[in-house]
C-alpha cells in the first residue's frame, strides 16, 4: 500500500501496523463489512415479499394455498436457521440447474445423477463455468440472500398474519356495511391498518436478522467472520506479517460493529414506533404521564 511497505521484516511500531492493516487481505476484510450491508439491503425487500405472500396464503380461502402458507411458516420457523443454511442453498443451486438443464438441454441423454455426482450440461450451469470469479461470488451471494429471505420471510409472514388479524373487527364490519367485497376490505382496510401492529414484530425481526448475518460464512460467502478468522489465525514466518493467534482481537472488532449496528437500529425503530403508535389506542400511544410507582421513560419503550 505505502512505499515503505516493501520490506515488512525491518519495520516496527507505527510503520509495521500501517502496512499490516492495509494488506490486500485487510482490504478484503474491510470490504466484507459492505457485504453485510448488501445482504441486509437485498434481503429486506425479499423478506417482506415472502412475508406478504406467506401471510396472504395463510388467509386464503383456497384450501391448498392455505395449507401451503401454514406449512411454510410453521416448518421453517421450527428449524434452526443454521441447519437450514447447511443444506438449502445447495438444494436451491441444484434445483435451479436442474430446471435449466431440462429446459435447455432436452436432447441430453446421460442421467443428471451419476452415482453421487450431480452433472448438468455446460450451458445449464449457473453461472457458466467460464464466468469470472466475481460472477460466481455474486451468484453465491444471491443464493445466500435467497436462503436468508426464505427463513426470515416465514417469521415475517407470521408477524404480518398476526397483524392482519389484529385489525379491530369493527373496522371490517364497517367495510362490510359499506358493501365492500372481501378483497376490497383486505386491500383498503386491513393492509393499511396492519402496519401499526406489525411494526414491533418486524423491528424485532430486523434485530434478529442483523445478528444472523455472521452465519453468512456457512453459506460460502467470504464475510466478516471468514476474514476475521482468517486474519486472526496464527501467521508463521511463511507470511509477510507473522503474528500469533489474534483471533480474539478481530472478534472484538466484530462485537463492536454489531453493537453499533444494533444501537443505531434501536434508536431508529424507537422513533418509528412512537410515530406509528401516535394516536393509536395502545399503551404506547396513551401512556404519557407516569405515576410515581413506575418510571416510564419514552425513549426506552420497546415492544419485543
Amino acid at each position, binding site marked *: 500500500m505505502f512505499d515503505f511497505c516493501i520490506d515488512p521484516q525491518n519495520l516496527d511500531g507505527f510503520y509495521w501496523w500501517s502496512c499490516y492493516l492495509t494488506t490486500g487481505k485487510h482490504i478484503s476484510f474491510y470490504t466484507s463489512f459492505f457485504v453485510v450491508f448488501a445482504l441486509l439491503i437485498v434481503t429486506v425487500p425479499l423478506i417482506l415479499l415472502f412475508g406478504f405472500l406467506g401471510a396472504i396464503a395463510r388467509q386464503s380461502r383456497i384450501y391448498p394455498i392455505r395449507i401451503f402458507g401454514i406449512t411454510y411458516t410453521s*416448518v421453517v*420457523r*421450527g*428449524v*434452526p*436457521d*443454521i*441447519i*437450514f443454511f*447447511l*443444506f438449502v442453498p*445447495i*438444494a436451491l443451486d441444484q434445483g435451479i440447474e436442474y430446471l435449466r438443464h431440462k429446459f435447455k438441454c432436452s436432447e441430453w441423454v446421460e442421467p443428471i445423477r451419476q452415482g*453421487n455426482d450431480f452433472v448438468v450440461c455446460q450451458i445449464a450451469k449457473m453461472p457458466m463455468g467460464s464466468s469470472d470469479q466475481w460472477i460466481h461470488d455474486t451468484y453465491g451471494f444471491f443464493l445466500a440472500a435467497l436462503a436468508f429471505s426464505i427463513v426470515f420471510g416465514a417469521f415475517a409472514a407470521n408477524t404480518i398474519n398476526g397483524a392482519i388479524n389484529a385489525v379491530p373487527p369493527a373496522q371490517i364490519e364497517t367495510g362490510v356495511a359499506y358493501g365492500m367485497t372481501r378483497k376490497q376490505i383486505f386491500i383498503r382496510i386491513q393492509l393499511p391498518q396492519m402496519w401499526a401492529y406489525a411494526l414491533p414484530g418486524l423491528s424485532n425481526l430486523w*434485530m*434478529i436478522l*442483523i*445478528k*444472523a*448475518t*455472521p*452465519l453468512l460464512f456457512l453459506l460460502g460467502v467470504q464475510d466478516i*467472520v471468514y476474514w476475521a478468522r482468517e486474519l486472526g489465525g496464527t501467521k508463521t514466518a511463511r507470511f509477510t506479517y507473522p503474528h500469533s493467534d489474534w*483471533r*480474539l482481537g478481530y*472478534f*472484538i472488532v*466484530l*462485537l463492536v460493529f*454489531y*453493537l453499533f*449496528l*444494533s*444501537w443505531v437500529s*434501536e434508536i431508529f425503530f424507537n422513533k418509528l414506533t412512537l410515530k406509528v403508535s401516535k394516536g393509536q389506542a395502545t*399503551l404506547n400511544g396513551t*401512556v404519557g404521564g407516569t*405515576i410515581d*410507582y*413506575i*418510571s*416510564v421513560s419514552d425513549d*426506552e*419503550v*420497546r*415492544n*419485543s
Partner: protein
Amino acid sequence: MSCLQTLTDYGLRSIGQGVRGLPKSDITLCDQFVLIGSGMIWNVYFAIIALFFGFFAATAIAFAKNSPQAILRVPSSIFIFILRGSPLFIQFFIVYETFVLFPKIGIDLNLIFMEITVETRWLTRAWLGALIVLFLNTTAYSAQIFYGAIQSVPLGDIEAAQALGLTNKQINKRIIWPTMLRLAWASYTNEAIFLFHATALVFFSSFPAWQQKGDALYYASYFADKTFNPFVPYPIIAMYFIIFTIIIILIFNSINKKLNKHL
C-alpha cells in the same frame, strides 16, 4: 445389525454410554436417526437449564431495569444491550477464548457447612461454559420482553391496588408480576423457541466436542462428512427440531391457559 441393536449401542452415545466408536462405513438411515436423536439430549439439556434459570434472572433484571434507582437501572440496561446487541455466535467465541485463559485449577470454596472445589477447567467444557453463555443470552432477551410487558401493565390496575392500600412489594408480587407474565407470554414463547434453536450453535462454533460426545448438529455434520451427502442428515435433524419445537409450543400454550384462567 438390527435397528434395535443400534438403539442400544448408540442411543446414549452423546453422553458417553454405549459403543465408543462411531459408525464409519455402511451407514444406515437407522444409524443417522439414532445418533442424531441421541445428540438432541444435549440440545434439550441446554434449553431446559438455561430457560429455567434464565426465567428467574430475567424477572429480576426486568424489574431492575424498571427501577427508578440508577444503580439498578443502568447496569441492567447495559447488560441487556450488550447481550441482545451482539450475535450469539460471537458471544460463544469470545467467552470461550476468555475462559481458556483462566488458570486450570480447583478453587476451594469454604462454605460454613462444607467445602466444595470449583474446577475452572469445567468452564471450557460445553456443559458448563456454553450453558453460561446461553443462560446469559436468554436472560437478556427475556428481561427485555418482561420489561416491555411491565411497561404495558394497565395503570388502572396499579392505581386500584394502591387505592386498596397494597404496599409496593405486594403490588409487584400480586399485580405486576402476574400481569407481566400474561402480557409477555407470547413473546416469551418465541424466545424459548429461539433459545432452543440456538443450542445448535454450541459445538458448531467454539466449544469442542470431547470423546465425540456432541449435540445433534455435531452428529448430523459427522454423517454429512462421512456419507458426503448433506440431504439426509440435515433434514433428519430438522425434523427432530420441528418435533421438539411443537412440544415447546404445547407446553407454553398450556401454561398460557393457566395464566389466563381467571379471564
